[in-house]
C-alpha cells in the first residue's frame, strides 16, 4: 500500500494556483523529498497532505485515508514538523512533550519511557527543564521532531525542517531521519537544500505548483540535457555576468568561485567562453566538464520550465 498518493491535487488562492494537478505516490518506508524554490507550493502541498487545508480539487490519500473525507483518521497516523517552530516557547521541553502526549492520547503507562527514549534519541535529555523558547534553532527543530514522534506516526511530514539550522545540527537531524526510515516510518520532507535532496530515496521537483520531475536523485539527474562545463576564474562574478550576456544559449550558474555552464556542445562552448573571458582580461584557471549535480539539474530544468511558460 502506498503511504501517500495524490491525484490531480490542486489548491487555488484566488487567482493564483499554489498547487497544480499534482499526481504522485510515495511507498511505505520511503524518504521522499519535495524540492523546489521558495513559493513553489511546497508548504501548501504539506498542508493539503496533513489535512490542515482542503484542496480546491483533486484527491489525496495518506496512510490509506482520504485527506478530506477521513480527516480525523489521518491525524492519528501522521506527525508534522512545520517550517516555523510550532511548539510553546513558554513551556519547558518536557512540558511540551507531555502536552502532545496528552493530545495524542498516549497512555500514561508508557509515556515516561517513551518521552525519555525520544529525548535520548534527539540528544535533548540534558535540556528537559529548559523553556523551549531558550533552545537553539537546531534543538528547537529536534524538539519539534520529538513531539511529532510521540505517537509513533506511520508517516512523518517535515516542512523545511533544517532551514536556518547549523550544519552540525543538520547532520544530527538527518541521522535521526535515517534511524526512523530503518524503523519503516515513511518520511515526506520538503527542502530547498539540494544536498539534502540528494539523500532522499526519491524526489519530486516542484515549480509554480507543478511537478517538473519525479524519481530517484539519479533518475532526476538524467533529465539534464547537455553537459556541464565548470570554470574557475579570477573574477567569477564579473565573468558570470559577461558569459550570460555573450552566450545567451547557455544557462550560467554561479556557485561561489565556480561557474557552471549548461551546454549541448561542450567543446564549442569551451572555446567561445575562453575567448569572451580573455577579451575581458579575466584569467581562467580551470575549465573542465563535470558530472551534473542536483543544483545543475535544478537550474536547467527550471530554466526550461521558464522558457516553456513564456511560450505558452
Amino acid at each position: 500500500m502506498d503511504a501517500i498518493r495524490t491525484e490531480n491535487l490542486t489548491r487555488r488562492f484566488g487567482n493564483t494556483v499554489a498547487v497544480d494537478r499534482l499526481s504522485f505516490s510515495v511507498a511505505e518506508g520511503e524518504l521522499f523529498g519535495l524540492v523546489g524554490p521558495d513559493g513553489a507550493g511546497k508548504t501548501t502541498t504539506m498542508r493539503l497532505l496533513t489535512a490542515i487545508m482542503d484542496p480546491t480539487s483533486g484527491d489525496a490519500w495518506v496512510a490509506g485515508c482520504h485527506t478530506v473525507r477521513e480527516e480525523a483518521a489521518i491525524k492519528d497516523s501522521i506527525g508534522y514538523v512545520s517550517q516555523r517552530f510550532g511548539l510553546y516557547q513558554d513551556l519547558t521541553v518536557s512540558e511540551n512533550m507531555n502536552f502532545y502526549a496528552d493530545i495524542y492520547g498516549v497512555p500514561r503507562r508508557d509515556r515516561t519511557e517513551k518521552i525519555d527514549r525520544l529525548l535520548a534519541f534527539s540528544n535533548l535529555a540534558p535540556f528537559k527543564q529548559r523553556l523551549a523558547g531558550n533552545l537553539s534553532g537546531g534543538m528547537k527543530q529536534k524538539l519539534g521532531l520529538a513531539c511529532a514522534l510521540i505517537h509513533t506516526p506511520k508517516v512523518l511530514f517535515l516542512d523545511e525542517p533544517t532551514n536556518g539550522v547549523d550544519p552540525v545540527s543538520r547532520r544530527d537531524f538527518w541521522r535521526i531521519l535515517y534511524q526512523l526510515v530503518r524503523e519503516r516510518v515513511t518520511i515526506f520532507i520538503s527542502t530547498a537544500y539540494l544536498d539534502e535532496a540528494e539523500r532522499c530515496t526519491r524526489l519530486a521537483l516542484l515549480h509554480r505548483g507543478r511537478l517538473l520531475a519525479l524519481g530517484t536523485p539519479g533518475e532526476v539527474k538524467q533529465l539534464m540535457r547537455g553537459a556541464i562545463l565548470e570554470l574557475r576564474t579570477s573574477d567569477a562574478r564579473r565573468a558570470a555576468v559577461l558569459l550570460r550576456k555573450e552566450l545567451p544559449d547557455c544557462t550560467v550558474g554561479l556557485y561561489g568561485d565556480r561557474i557552471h555552464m549548461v551546454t549541448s556542445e561542450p567543446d564549442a562552448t569551451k572555446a567561445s567562453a575562453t575567448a569572451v573571458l580573455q577579451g575581458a582580461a579575466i584569467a581562467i584557471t580551470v575549465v573542465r566538464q563535470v558530472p551534473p549535480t542536483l543544483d545543475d539539474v535544478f537550474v536547467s530544468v527550471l530554466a526550461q520550465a521558464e522558457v516553456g511558460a513564456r511560450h505558452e
Partner: protein
Amino acid sequence: MLVKEFIHIFRDPKMKAVIFLVPVIQSMIFGYAVTTDVKHVATAVFDLDNSQASRELVARFVRSGYFDVVARVQNEGQVRVLLDRGRARAVLRFNQGFEREMLAGRTARLQVLLDGADSNSAGIVLEYSARIAAEFSRTVLIERSARLAGAFRPPGGVDLQARAWFNENLESRNFYVPGVIAILVMLITLMLTSMAVVREKEVGTMEQILVTPITPGEFIAGKTLPFALIGFVDVIVITAIAVFWFEVPIRGNLLLLFLATALYLMTTLGIGLFISTISQTQQQAMMSTFFFYMPAILLSGFIFPIANMPESIQWLTYLNPLRYFLIVIRGIFLKGIGISVLWPQLLALAVMGLLTLRAAAGRFHKTMA
C-alpha cells in the same frame, strides 16, 4: 490542554497581576468613583439683599449637606468667572429687596444659576434647591400665619412620604458596585479568551495543533475552562470587596449568583473565542474586543437606564448578555430575589452562551483554510 493554559498564564508574572490585582484595584476605584450621588456642590452666594431672610435660606442650603458655600461674590462679573472656571457649580442669587418682598406678602425671587454642562448633576442640584426653597417658604408661611391669626391653623397639605425599597438611602454605590463586578469580569474574560486562539495563530503553534487529532470541542474546552475558573475567582474577590469593604448588602442566594455567573461567563468566553477565531492578529482581536465591549457597557443599563433609550436601541440591548447579568446580579444583591423571578434572564444567558460557544467551535474547525 487545560494544564497547559494554566501554565501559560502563571508563567507570566505580568499576566498574574492583570488577572487578580487589576480587578481588586479597579473595583476599589470604581466603588468610590462610580456614583451619581451629588453632594457637596461648590456653591457661590451672590447676595444683594444681605438680610436675615436671605442668610436664613443660605443656611438651609448649607445644612442640607448638598451645598458648600465656597465664595461670596459682589457682582455679575465674578459670577461669570466662577462658573466659567468651574470653581462653583451653583450660584444662589438674591436680589435687593428679597426680604422686603417677602414681608410684604409678595413672592420673593431666589435665582439659582447652575453649571449645566453636566446636565445630569445640574438636574439633581436643581431638584434639591427646589425642595429646600419650597420647605423654606412653607415654614415662612406657617410662621406668618401663626403670627397673624394667633390660633389659626394652616390648611392641612399632603405630606409625601416616599420610601425607596431595596436601597433605602438611595445610595448609588449599592446600585453600581454589583454592576462593576459584571463589567470587570466581562473585560477580563473577553481579553483573555480573545487573545487565546489568535496568539497560537500568530506564534505558529496553531498549525501544529491542527495536525493533531484534537477535536474542536476539546480545543474550545481547553481554552475556556481555565478562563472560566479565573472569571469565577475574580467574581468572588470582587464580591468580597463589595460586601466587606463597601458594605453593599447581599440579600439573595450566593449559589444562584454563582449559577448566573457560570452562564454569564459562557457568553463572554464564547464571544471572546469567536473574536479570537475570526481575527488574524492580536491587534485585530484587541480592537474587536473593544468594539464589542464599549457598546455592551453603554447599552446594558449599567449607567444609562435602558427604559430611556429609543425603542429600536432597546431591542438591540436584548442581544447584550451584560444587560441580563446586570438585572440578575442587582436583583440578587439588592432585592434578594430568586430564580422564580430571574429565570428569563438566566435562560437568555444560557442560550446566548451555548450559541456563542458553538459558533466559536464551528469557526475553529478549519482556521487554516
